[in-house]
């Protein structure tokens, strides 16, 4: 029996020791992260400190409680001839263990309150970004005081082949996007967060930001990154099938690099405008369309156009039917179904390319094509 008690002791202490060794010494199996990251912001650091303080208080109390319990288990055993005492109440003791925890809680509440107030201090941001959650991607829009807002979608970049294990997984498996959010370092950035369809939650642990994206309503939160780097996060609120496949990547760069990036974005926008005026060959459109398909359509329509959440594209009546009707579905979606309106998500070149691709891939040999100007005209009615 005594052997068993020691085993029990070891087992019960095991997790606690594991936690202490892992958290305090920063040691874990194969260097895997075992604790919260203080991250790149002051708020994140305060949250981390708070987390550690409370963890320590809990550990100490826990060791005390378990210590008493295991002392009883070892020394007050019937098999050792222990005879039960007869006490069963003590008002003094009971008052003490009501009051003391209460005081400890007050001690915890003080730093918790001040940290919370800081998290809620949203004003005086230098940059405002509208973050919109979509099933299953994020849209970022930089609110610009003078001129057009820069806006783009950020999709998962990990290919299906890695997800389905036919290719080795890359270093940032599931945490990589085609176009990351870029923000300047040492700048208070305010995020306005909303949802397009269901509730999502925008979370970047190292920027200490997590806020729900609620359709119809707007939420706000902020960050101030003190160091440059690439910070990765994920959607934190169950939002349907691909909830696990809508990561967030934030590049925190120097203010100069941010300025350059902004400039490049404007040039890119201009280039797209120029491309929109061009006429492409079928091959060019199909080539570009394949890449667009992979990030915009594949999740629902399948890698081979076989369908899934969405209808099949291979041999479908739409993709092998009237080209204008096909384009209309792409631009306006099908209200009441999972088919979104992509007119606002893809630029005219990409829209033309992907429609052309769908009509000339997966065995759909239509041979016809859509030019960017057709998309433009369709949108303008």
């Amino acid at each position, binding site marked *: 029996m005594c052997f068993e*008690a020691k085993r029990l002791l070891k*087992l019960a202490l095991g997790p606690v020791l594991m936690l202490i060794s892992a958290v305090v010494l920063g040691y874990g*199996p194969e260097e*895997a*992260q*075992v*604790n919260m*990251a203080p991250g790149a912001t002051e708020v994140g650091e305060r*949250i981390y400190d708070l*987390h550690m303080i*409370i*963890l320590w208080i*809990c*550990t100490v109390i*826990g060791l005390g409680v378990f210590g008493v*319990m295991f002392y*009883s*288990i070892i020394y*007050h*055993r*019937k098999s050792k001839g*222990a*005879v039960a*005492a*007869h*006490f069963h*109440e*003590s008002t003094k003791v*009971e008052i003490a*263990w*009501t009051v003391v925890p209460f005081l400890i*809680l007050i001690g915890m*509440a003080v730093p*918790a*309150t001040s940290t*919370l*107030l800081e*998290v*809620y201090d949203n004003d005086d941001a230098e940059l405002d970004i509208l973050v919109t959650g979509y099933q299953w991607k994020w849209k970022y829009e930089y609110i610009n005081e003078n001129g057009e807002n820069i806006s783009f979608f950020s999709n998962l970049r990990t290919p299906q082949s890695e997800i*389905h294990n036919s290719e080795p997984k890359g270093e940032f*498996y*599931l945490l990589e996007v085609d176009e990351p959010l870029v923000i300047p370092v040492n700048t208070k950035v305010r995020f306005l967060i909303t949802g397009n*369809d*269901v*509730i999502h*939650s925008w979370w970047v*642990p190292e920027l200490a*930001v997590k*806020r*729900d994206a*609620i*359709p*119809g309503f707007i939420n706000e939160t902020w960050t101030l990154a003190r160091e440059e780097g690439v910070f990765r*996060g*994920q959607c934190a*609120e*169950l939002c349907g099938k691909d*909830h*696990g496949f809508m990561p967030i990547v934030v590049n925190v760069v120097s203010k100069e690099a941010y300025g350059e990036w902004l400039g490049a974005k404007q040039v890119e926008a201009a280039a797209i405008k120029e491309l929109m005026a061009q006429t492409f060959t079928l091959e060019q459109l199909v080539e570009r369309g394949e890449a667009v398909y992979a990030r915009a359509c594949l999740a629902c329509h399948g890698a081979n156009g076989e369908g899934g*959440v969405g209808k099949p594209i291979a041999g479908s009546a739409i993709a092998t039917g009237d080209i204008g009707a096909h384009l209309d579905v792409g631009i306006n979606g099908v209200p009441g179904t999972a088919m979104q309106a992509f007119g606002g998500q893809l630029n005219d070149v990409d829209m033309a390319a992907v429609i052309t691709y769908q009509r000339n891939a997966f065995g759909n040999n239509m041979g016809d094509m859509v030019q960017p100007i057709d998309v433009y005209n369709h949108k303008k009615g």
Partner: protein
Amino acid sequence: MGDHHHGPAKGLGRWLFTTNHKDIGTMYLWFSFSMFILGGFFAMIIRAELFQPGLQLVEPAFFNQMTTLHGLIMVFGAIMPSFVGLANWLIPMMIGAPDMALPRMNNWSFWILPPTFLLLASTLFMEGGAPAAGWTFYAPLSTTYAGPSVTFFIFSIHVLGLSSIMGSINIIATVMNMRAPGMTYMKMPLFVWTWLITAFLLVAVMPVLAGAVTMMLMDVHFGTSFFSAAGGGDPVLFQHVFWFFGHPEVYIIILPAFGVVSQIIPAFSRKQLFGYDSMVYATASIAFLSFIVWAHHMFTVGMPVAGELFFMYATMLIAVPTGVKVFNWVTTMWRGSLSFETPMLFCIGFLILFTIGGFTGLMLAIAPVDFQYHDTYFVVAHFHYVMVAGAVFSMSAAIYFWLPKWCGRMYNETMGKTHFWISFIGFNIAFFPQHFVGLAGMPRRIPDYALQFADFNMMSSIGAFIYGLSQILFLYNVIATIVAGKPVSDPKVWDGAEGLEWTIPTPAPYHTFETPPAVK
């Protein structure tokens, strides 16, 4: 049983039409165990998919159906009915009553359950699949964006809510009206007390859940906009209504477990429970506080800061009565005369795991830190520590403790202890690493994850398989006991056991306390 003037009826009719609290208790227990196996099977699918990064076994849409059904079936099909079953068996025997107060309703409240869960499980085979919005089914994912199965799901929730309400009314009516002479409220065993309070919670909040799903039904089919901003509603309202039910619900799950532990620890410490009065008051204060803390599940929805502070402080307060309970149990063991039969081992396991879960609960209560914990595996680890430890460990303890009384046969102690050790070790391997991946940033309810979470997830899956397998041993042990266990005839069974249920013969006759006992 044969020597009694009228025993049970024969054949299937006995079970269909029975109004005997022991028969109904038995049915509840078997039903909940089968649901436990089904919900556990879904958990095994989840853990198998999460064994490695990448999609191996199931597609994401099916994965979401698994997490949803696992939660719903464990909460509503396994845990709640199991404690109702225990209440049916024990409450009349503990308060010296011949049966439950409303035996016919008792029969109905059980028999509407199996068809309901059959319906819920059958949604898996419907077009569009089973509900997949999580056991918390937040709108609009569960309304506008749900498949056709949502209607059947809502119907199931209505019926099982009805069953719980009927069961609770029965328990309250029994405790308030059928106590033996001399059995004052403050003499009732703690299991009866915790169930009485639980039953009041159920009567208060199950209708709220019914209201929430009714609003969903109206949004889906009758064009209202309770949860859609388009018509002037608000999806966040759903979360408030749901958690107004949901937080008391988690105490509904844990309070009867407190009762079980408060019966068993004194028995194997051979010492009276320490601080009986404070246990009762602590239970009542936990129940009261459960009504004013619901929004701590929603710290990230963007509440005004005053709301965040209120719910943070109120939640932290729960640590006080919960602490009182843990201290009382430990002090009961202090200077007792302890022995470690299987029920006691499970209670000690409960104490350890529940205390860890309580601490992580306190951490989660701190709103600014919760911004980092919310919706991660840290939360998953937390509620499995409290719920599995609370419900399953205490339920196992209860079965080992009272089974010999019920069937007059002793379980196999070696097998029981083996069950304890395997499940205790398996549980910790499964759920402790989930704290780490949660803190490192792994969101919950995802079918696939980034590579840095791989090691701990594999460990967690292995632990889950061990834990799952240990329940098969439990099932075997229970059946072996009922069929061929060593007969016991001592009314007390355990030398330290106290209470009216240990004064009647072993095995418990089909009818007990037809003349009320005198309680001093």
